[in-house]
């Protein structure tokens, strides 16, 4: 990246030099001059600002303004449909929130559901990408790659619905267990004791989608000569994986971990899907698999307690920020900065 840095567009480098000379010449009114130079630079780069305008306007109005509004309103008793916006600010929502047993339990549910899911989502595609990597027939490997992507052709909710058939009382899982002599007759998703494992197990063997291919891209970017050298050294497969592949894939693992964590803390899609079709009873959703995100959703759109919902959102937001900051510190990720 330093290479590119030194190749700054010629014109602008000259610009800077000229500006510096001018500043030295008229050293007296330094600040005024600096402002002038900056204004000149900005004018020179007006095309850049024009190009960025659509993005920046959208980002400011629809990505920065709403969360700020949410945090401000989380201190009010904002109700849906309340006509006169006469807000009084207090900590009431937060005090109530930390005495709300539904919310406190939902945090544990969220961890029980999403931590295993996160680990599975990172590890299993990695293992499968390794398996595909060692396939020698290039044609077969290409076919496998296409098949791995096949599940993306159906909307994700369909995957969930299909799994609800597997989990029904007369479903495939009970049938399979019956084959092995176990006479099981439960509706896996409608049972407080089994619903969380059932949700985690959904999507088994968890290899469909883009993750495997993202890992493959990491594996294929390892220079072939390095792999060949390892092979000549007589390194065993396991050793190549452990000391060559894994270190090279850290970037991908970090990516899945950080974005997986951010997603995990706020995820409530499965609750919406399962309650929408009436496949799972209300009280299961409202207790056994209630998560903070879904609690916020119901508080806002079923109960109309928008201020309270914003408080829940703010707490989730703080959680995610802290976790992300820690992961970034631990992994020392700096990929986000421009050179």
């Amino acid at each position, binding site marked *: 990246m330093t290479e590119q840095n030194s190749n700054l567009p010629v014109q602008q480098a000259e610009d800077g030099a000229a500006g510096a000379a001018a500043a030295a010449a008229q050293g007296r009114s330094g600040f005024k001059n600096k402002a002038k130079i900056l204004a000149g630079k900005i004018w020179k780069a007006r095309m850049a600002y024009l190009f*960025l305008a659509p993005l920046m306007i959208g980002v400011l109005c629809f990505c920065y303004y709403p969360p700020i509004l949410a945090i401000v309103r989380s201190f009010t008793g904002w109700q849906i449909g309340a006509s006169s916006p006469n807000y009084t600010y207090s900590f009431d929502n937060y005090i109530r929130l930390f005495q709300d047993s539904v919310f406190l339990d939902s945090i544990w549910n969220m961890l029980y559901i999403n931590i295993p899911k996160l680990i599975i989502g990172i590890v299993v595609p990695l293992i499968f990408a390794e398996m595909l990597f060692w*396939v020698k027939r290039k044609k077969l490997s290409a076919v496998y790659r296409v098949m791995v992507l096949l599940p993306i052709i159906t909307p*994700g909710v369909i995957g969930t619905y299909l799994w609800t058939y597997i989990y029904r009382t007369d479903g495939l899982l009970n049938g399979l267990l019956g084959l092995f002599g176990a006479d099981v007759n439960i509706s896996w998703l409608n049972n407080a004791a089994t619903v969380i494992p059932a949700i985690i197990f959904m999507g088994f063997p968890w290899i469909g989608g883009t993750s495997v291919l993202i890992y493959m891209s990491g594996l294929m970017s390892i220079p072939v000569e390095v792999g060949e050298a390892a092979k000549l050294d007589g390194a065993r497969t396991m050793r190549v994986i452990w000391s060559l592949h894994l270190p090279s894939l850290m970037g991908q693992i970090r990516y899945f971990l950080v974005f997986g964590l951010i997603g995990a803390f706020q995820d409530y899609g499965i609750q919406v899907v399962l309650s929408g079709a009436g496949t799972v009873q209300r009280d299961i959703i409202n207790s056994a698999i209630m998560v903070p995100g879904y609690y916020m959703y119901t508080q806002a759109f079923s109960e109309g307690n928008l201020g309270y919902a914003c408080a829940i959102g703010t707490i989730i937001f703080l959680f995610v920020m802290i976790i992300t900051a820690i992961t970034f510190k631990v992994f020392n990720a700096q990929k986000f900065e421009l050179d």
Partner: protein
Amino acid sequence: MQTETVRRKKISADRVRQIIPQVILNICICFLLFLMLYPLAMAIWNALKIDYLFENTKWYPTLPLVVTNLIDAFGLLDSYILNTVEVGIFGGGGLIIIASISAYTFAKMRFPGRKAMYAMVIALLMMPGILTLIPQLMIYRGLGLTKSDSIFSLILPLWTSGPIFGVFLLTSFFRGIPNDIFEAAKIDGAGDFVCYFRIALPICMPIMGTLAIMTLVNIWNDYLWPMTVMEDRLTIAAALVRVYTSEHSSNTTMQFAGYLVSAIPLIVLFVVANKYYIEGLIGSSIKL
């Protein structure tokens, strides 16, 4: 002569030693792929099944295949599919234009505030979207978009918060293009926009294709926002969740037919573009 046969035997023994692990590996892969694809296959054969056969034979395919359920389901879902296609074309198209020109600007142009603005955009990748849900809905209500059930309330988020990931993906890609090309073009009198449109874009077609497919898949999958903001003009996933599945809860084959129908546009997209997509993903080196 004798040594020759010995050598041959040795080679074949070596080959066997190489082949056996490969065979085992391939069998394992095929088995896992089978498990993965089984629910999808189940959707397909149950969508094509005669109703009375379903109860006893739902776990495996049977003949004859009938398409009446598919046709019925298409009649019920076509307006939602059209909606989604519309959102995909306008929303997704805008997203890609905004993301690519912004990424080019960040990667290849120099201007005051460049780093700060980039950091501002990229920080949003880390921002949990859940906090924006409620105020955003209120903003859309304030703009009068929800009252008229305007499809614009599905398109606008794609133009505003949608491009963020694209900017992240494309900026690192544009940075990989050597500056010399652009400098040469500038000496020949090309402006910034020409550099972007004529040089940067053609080079980045595969990764743009990947971004396009990712975007379309996301639009196809999203049900939370459409369910929150729209009354009737839902996208397909939202329609499946809110309307279709509960309306046909007693008719399972009809449900499966709906699932299959809703996947048709993506199946077409996949058949046309999977090579592009895979190439782009493999070449993208998405990481942190």
